[in-house]
């Protein structure tokens, strides 16, 4: 705080209360939060989902999302102007020109119908800050500063023609188009791969520095906020927990809740090694090549084994073929070449040709529990259906089995038996997804990014549950993830995939110890660490031209040299 306290105050929020409309009543979402931001200061807002981070971010622009309202008595003062009493057009005149917004998903937040540069120049032309051509030149200059490839040309593409990491930087450039005093970054890197995240983080930090822009940086990732923010404010359920400078917050958190956030990555289970008594692998993927209809090859000679009772983590960036491998194993996508063995027996390539017993062995748990559970079906039917289908249970036996499964996933049967998925929290829904997979009594479960949509504390609960189930039921997991922290905590073996190929595989302890394959090295070193100087040091080490996509393509080329 000391670094900024002598500067002018840019934004002062006092006793902010926001209500949201649900079930025909107004419910408090933000319960009296104060926030003071000086010129040039970057404040990190951190908390779990539902903590109200994004709502506060929008409120700093005087904006209440549909279905929410800012209550009487709240005060939001931006550079001497009280936003709660200003007229709508006065508030609108600030947006884009003096306060800009960078959204979580750039892919969804760019209008698909217009070229990127047309969206970039919209605000400066609208506010008559720049003429159209000037704004266009300025856009190209910003693209160059943000190290986008082909800065002269990239803006003339449509959003779907540009990759996620580039779009996120283009959106940061768009926020800069009117040189605002304040930018709200709402989880700008959450949807990106670790390797891409770095270049976006570096670009954001540079540009905020260069123009001395103040920023509110919203995220749930502590390591990220440690790189970006001068001060950190921790939120829980619409209330402030504590606020301090970044170093102080990392070294010496005061509140128990903050400490618990910091301690999340502590869960670690003992690594198991392959059985040496000649047991056959449970699942053996052998030289699988696969492609989607008419498309290019997405899997190129993929082979790995999964032994009973072990957890194999499959890691890689999006598009590396992790989920496609799962589809091949479950029979949803028959491979072009190669086969999948179950206990030494080849599985028919198409799921329609598999027997019921073969089908039950490969169960899936999905990333988005929201969309993987039918919202109109009661919990006991969701879990009971596979139990009925695979084990032929009926009547009281079925009910007993469902109760047993609910007990297994630590949800009180009497309470949840008759409820519908939308009534549950994200973590509870994911537990239902687990119970549904268990209902088939499989020996092998594919977990496809099961924790990446969850908050860290909730995710940790899910990991502990999966671990307990593995011990009790002797399950083998194929754990698809891009989060290396998760890999560290639960995997026995690691398979690293890139562009549809397995680049490296082995026991976890070996994989995390150098020397690595260059791509593994890149993935490992790209995971943000709690150290606030991590990004700076990493950038010095790698050099500015050697991060993100540039580094990925080099990692790609390396094996051949």
């Amino acid at each position, binding site marked *: 705080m000391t670094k900024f306290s002598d500067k002018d105050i840019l934004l002062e929020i006092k006793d902010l209360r926001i209500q949201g409309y649900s079930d025909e009543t107004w419910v408090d979402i933000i319960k009296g939060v104060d926030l003071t931001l000086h010129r040039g200061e970057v404040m990190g807002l951190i908390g779990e989902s539902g903590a109200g981070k994004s709502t506060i971010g929008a409120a700093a622009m005087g904006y209440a999302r*549909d279905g929410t309202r800012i209550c009487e008595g709240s005060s939001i003062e931006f550079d001497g102007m009280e936003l709660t009493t200003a007229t709508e057009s006065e508030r609108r005149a600030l947006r*884009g020109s003096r306060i800009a917004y960078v959204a979580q998903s750039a892919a969804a*937040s*760019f*209008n698909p119908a217009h070229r990127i540069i047309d969206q970039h120049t919209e605000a400066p032309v*609208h506010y008559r800050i720049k003429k159209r051509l000037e704004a266009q030149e300025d856009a190209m200059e910003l693209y160059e500063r943000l190290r986008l490839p082909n800065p002269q040309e990239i803006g003339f593409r*449509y959003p779907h*023609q540009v990759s996620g990491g580039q779009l996120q930087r283009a959106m940061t450039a768009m926020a800069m188009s009117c040189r605002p005093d304040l930018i709200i970054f709402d989880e700008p890197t959450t949807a990106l791969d670790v390797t891409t995240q770095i270049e976006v983080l570096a670009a954001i930090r540079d540009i905020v520095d260069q123009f001395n822009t103040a920023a509110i940086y919203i995220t749930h990732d502590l390591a990220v906020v440690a790189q970006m923010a001068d001060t950190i404010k921790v939120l829980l359920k619409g209330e402030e927990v504590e606020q301090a400078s970044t170093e102080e917050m990392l070294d010496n958190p005061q509140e128990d809740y903050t400490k618990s956030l910091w301690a999340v990555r502590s869960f670690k289970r003992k690594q198991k090694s392959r059985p040496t008594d000649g047991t056959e692998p449970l699942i053996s993927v052998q030289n699988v090549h696969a492609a989607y209809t008419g498309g290019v090859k997405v899997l190129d000679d993929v082979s790995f084994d999964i032994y009973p009772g072990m957890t194999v983590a499959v890691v890689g960036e999006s598009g590396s073929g992790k989920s496609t491998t799962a589809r091949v194993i479950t029979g949803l996508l028959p491979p072009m070449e190669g086969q999948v063995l179950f206990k030494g027996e080849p599985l028919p390539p198409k799921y329609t040709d598999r027997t019921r017993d073969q089908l039950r062995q490969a169960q899936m748990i999905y990333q988005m529990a929201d969309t993987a559970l039918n919202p109109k079906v009661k919990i006991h039917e969701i879990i009971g259906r596979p139990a009925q289908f695979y084990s032929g249970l009926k009547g009281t036996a079925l009910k007993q089995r469902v109760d047993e499964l609910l007990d297994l996933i630590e949800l009180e049967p009497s309470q949840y038996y008759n409820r519908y998925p939308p009534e549950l929290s994200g973590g509870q829904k994911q537990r239902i997804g687990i119970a549904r997979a268990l209902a088939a009594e499989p020996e092998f479960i594919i977990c496809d990014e099961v924790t990446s949509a969850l908050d860290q504390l909730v995710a940790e609960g899910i990991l502990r549950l999966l671990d307990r189930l593995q011990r009790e039921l002797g399950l083998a997991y194929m754990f698809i993830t891009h989060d290396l922290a998760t890999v560290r905590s639960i995997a026995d073996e690691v398979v690293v995939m890139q562009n549809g190929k397995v680049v490296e595989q082995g026991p976890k302890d070996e994989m995390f110890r150098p020397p690595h394959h260059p791509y593994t090295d890149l993935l490992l070193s790209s995971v943000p660490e709690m150290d606030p100087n991590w990004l700076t040091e990493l950038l010095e080490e790698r050099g500015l031209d050697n991060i993100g996509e540039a580094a990925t393509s080099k990692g790609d080329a390396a094996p051949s040299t």
Partner: protein
Amino acid sequence: MGDLTRLVLKRLGLGLLTLLVVSILIFFAVELLPGDIAEAVLGQSATPETVAEMRRQLGLDQPAVWRYLQWLGGAVQGDFGVSLVSGEPVSEAIGDRFVNTLFLAAYAAVIAVPISIILGVTVALLRNTLFDRVANVLTLTSISSPEFFLGYILILFLAVKTNMFPAIASLSSDMSLSELLNRTFLPALTLVLVVTAHMMRMTRAAIINLLASPYIEMARLKGTPPWKVIVKHALPNAWAPIINVIALNLAYLITGVVLVEVVFVYPGIGQALVDAVAKRDFPIVQACCLIFAATFILLNLAADVGAILTNPRLRHPK
């Protein structure tokens, strides 16, 4: 773009197949109707001998399948036969009438489509206001009233009471365009009232559906004024459903005009169809129905092509 040409060709091929099926259905449906043209034309004075003689002359004594194949053989070469009643070739008998129907449909469409889109955009902008509700109630009222009723109401007020427009749309070939537009204004207005509600409400719904999208919020947070958010950011992404509803309504303007034509005594294809069915004049019925079917097929194809052309992902591939 090669994909698009392929799609159009494929759909046209399927369309021809559909027309073939339609022609079979129509032929046998007409066969199923009680009575035939000989009885219908000769009326009550018919003796069994005259009826049989007429049937023989028209070739109706031959088996139905054979007659259908004969008709089909001609149709493939572009000859749709002659009217059984008047003996004129079908193309002459309904050609002028089809042009009249197209004229009326185009007249109504030129008014209805822009009005419904502009209204739809306006009510989306002013959603849940008094204007929105009034516009909804009025257009829904007009769509829920039977067309002949609407037609008579319009005649009552605009023709009989105020004498602004002629009540009967009789046409002659030497009329000037402005006179033509004046004479056909009431039937066109009736059609406009019937189709506007549907298109307007779809425009409204398609736009409002998009208002929860992140890019709309982004546009708002960039300080874009509300009308520009709707027109520039929502509308370009809402075209696909709107175009589809427009196509359906255009098809309705051509195929659904029978009642309006009867009310305003307008010499269109709908009336020709009704007369032909009453007289069991199969070649005319068949030709009219095929025109209607082709209208639906072509307009739906046009809607799909339009939806593809307004989608930037398909227009500018990676």
